[in-house]
């Protein structure tokens, strides 16, 4: 008998006849804050992890201000956000060693969670593959205000159909292994800069996104691909 059959057989006989329990989900699945409060909460909570958080209107100018040296960008990183004077290397399958030789990385994100101060990357075109945001020592992440949800369940609803790898990031890497003294920056980027981009109100959804109503049209407001489409549209207009 194979190990598979053996284990499945043992499992079957161990729980034979046991009733299936009811799962009640009475926890919060939709936030109560409006957009302004949501954004403020996100900035505060992300800042408490000792990430550097800035609210910006001109993304390219802010990027130019916080970035030094040579940075890698994923191919889908919006042109409008790239300061002309900055030395940017587009990722064309750089090796880990090549990434290690660069000073930082510049990305967007798919969704951000206000209550926990978390940004979520899904290897989307403006976020790049996982190694990009891992090997370089500085990570500058642009978060659009419309990408910020209030609660963890609301973010998970946005991520439900993402087949690519997902990384949740809450502050720079850290360890408290020595006498519980927190040290920021171990193996991941030691500096995390979050630029929260204000957007023209035309893009704003009429209602704050709701995780409890998971109709497809609700989700589409936060579909990363829709946002990227919007970027492409915006680039073409410019």
């Amino acid at each position, binding site marked *: 008998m194979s190990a598979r059959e053996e284990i499945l057989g043992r499992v079957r006989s161990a729980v034979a006849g046991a009733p299936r329990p009811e799962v009640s989900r009475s926890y919060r699945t939709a936030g109560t804050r409006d957009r302004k409060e949501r954004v403020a909460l996100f900035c505060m909570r992300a800042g408490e992890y000792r990430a550097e958080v800035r609210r910006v209107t001109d993304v390219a100018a802010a990027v130019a201000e916080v970035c030094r040296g040579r940075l890698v960008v994923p191919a889908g990183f919006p042109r409008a956000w790239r300061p002309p004077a900055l030395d940017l290397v587009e990722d064309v399958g750089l090796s880990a060693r090549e990434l290690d030789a660069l000073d930082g990385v510049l990305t967007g994100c798919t969704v951000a969670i206000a209550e926990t101060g978390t940004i979520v990357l899904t*290897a989307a075109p403006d976020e790049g593959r996982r190694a990009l945001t891992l090997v370089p020592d500085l990570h500058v992440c642009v978060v659009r205000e419309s990408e910020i949800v209030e609660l963890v369940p609301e973010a998970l609803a946005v991520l439900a159909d993402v087949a690519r790898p997902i990384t949740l990031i809450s502050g720079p890497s850290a360890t408290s292994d020595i006498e519980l003294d927190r040290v920021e920056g171990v193996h991941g980027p030691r500096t995390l800069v979050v630029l929260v981009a204000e957007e023209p109100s035309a893009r704003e959804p009429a209602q704050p996104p709701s995780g409890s109503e998971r109709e497809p049209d609700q989700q589409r407001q936060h579909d990363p691909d829709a946002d990227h489409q919007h970027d492409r549209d915006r680039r073409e207009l410019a």
Partner: protein
Amino acid sequence: MRPFPEAARVELANVQLRTNLRNATDTIQAKRARVVGELPDWEELREAGRAIKADVLVGLEGYLVQFEAAVEARGGHVHWACDAAEANAVVARVAREHGIDEVLKVKSLTTDEIGLNDALAAAGIRALETDFAELILQLDGDWPSHILVPAIHRNRREIRDLFARTIAPGIASDEPSDLAEAARVYLREKFLDVRMGVSGANFGIAETGTVCVVESEGNGRMCTTLPPVLVSVLGIEKLLPRFADLEVFLQLLPRSATGERMNPYTSLWTGATEGQELHVVLLDNGRTRVLRDEVGRQALACIRCSACLNVCPVYTRTGGHAYGSVYPGPIGAILTPQLLGVEEAPSLPFASTLCGACYDVCPVKIDIPSVLVHLRAKVTAAQGPTRERTGMRTVAWILGAPRRLAFAQALARLLQRPFVREGMLRRLPPPLAAWTRTRDLKPVAPESFREWWRRR
């Protein structure tokens, strides 16, 4: 396994350990209480967490098959292992097939449980721990004393001296940031070169085949992202039915574990990702034995947050080594005897005061005190008749009738006379000596209540 009281006596004599441990557990406990108090729906999340895990255990067969199919549909390979030896053999075989003699490890209790590092070493493969604390312990041939901060029994000077002898010759500073930098520099080269990573997993999603690793340092991301070959070892109980279930556990785990709203990094990947070869090993190793016990099976719901350790009046004094297993503290006291069989660890269910603090903080509401009592009954039943039990039966018989009690009291008054010193019984002859070794006893009163009442 050495009996708990014996092992505990050794650990209790270690003042450094007790000081560090107390400081750490008090700090984490306070942080946990603060961030848990922030959530208005914490109890609802706990209840959902408990119920989802209970459902996983009852429906495990279906979820395992579903998970396997989902991983394979996305190009991953799934292996099944009945015990530690089978799991270790799978990992060694994958390494050998790629001509790999060094692998990088993400901190994982499951791979500690199966003794993977030693098994790989026997096969000529070096397994390098990449979690900061695990690296410290590995360099020193030591083993974890806490689930979450495994090297909590070490102080900064000890670690500096260790690094100076091993990975960072000449290092003078014992500042935690400098020590972390030394580990960063040493491991960076390994991350860039080594071709195989080995991880455990916090969760596996049956619906999608997604594997989830929760961590702080980024070593987990390094090991699961950079090497072209990745092997993840999952206990079969680590599954969750749906992707959306993560919305519960990604709130319960970080707040219960490190007392953070969210841990720095959570990685989720499904099947072979970004050109990487993925192997998933589904491990039994005693878990189906635990599953057979209707009361005890809830121990398999554990998400390894270690909140129960930090509140336990026994653990916070003895530390983890006394439990003689990779699973220490209250959860270890119910998990280890069940995984191995109670006859292998009969003292562990008694390593508790039954105060219930562990139950109160458990994010998935494992009723640890009830399981402890349940296991104690099993241990006692297996031991057969003992002097203690015979004694208790006799006492029950005496207390069963007023006349027997009166007679026993009169007899005791007579027999205790030579042992009363300054109104107390300070030392009794065997077999009662065990009681008076650490306590004084009030003698039986010259007159009982009934006698006094009759006299009035």
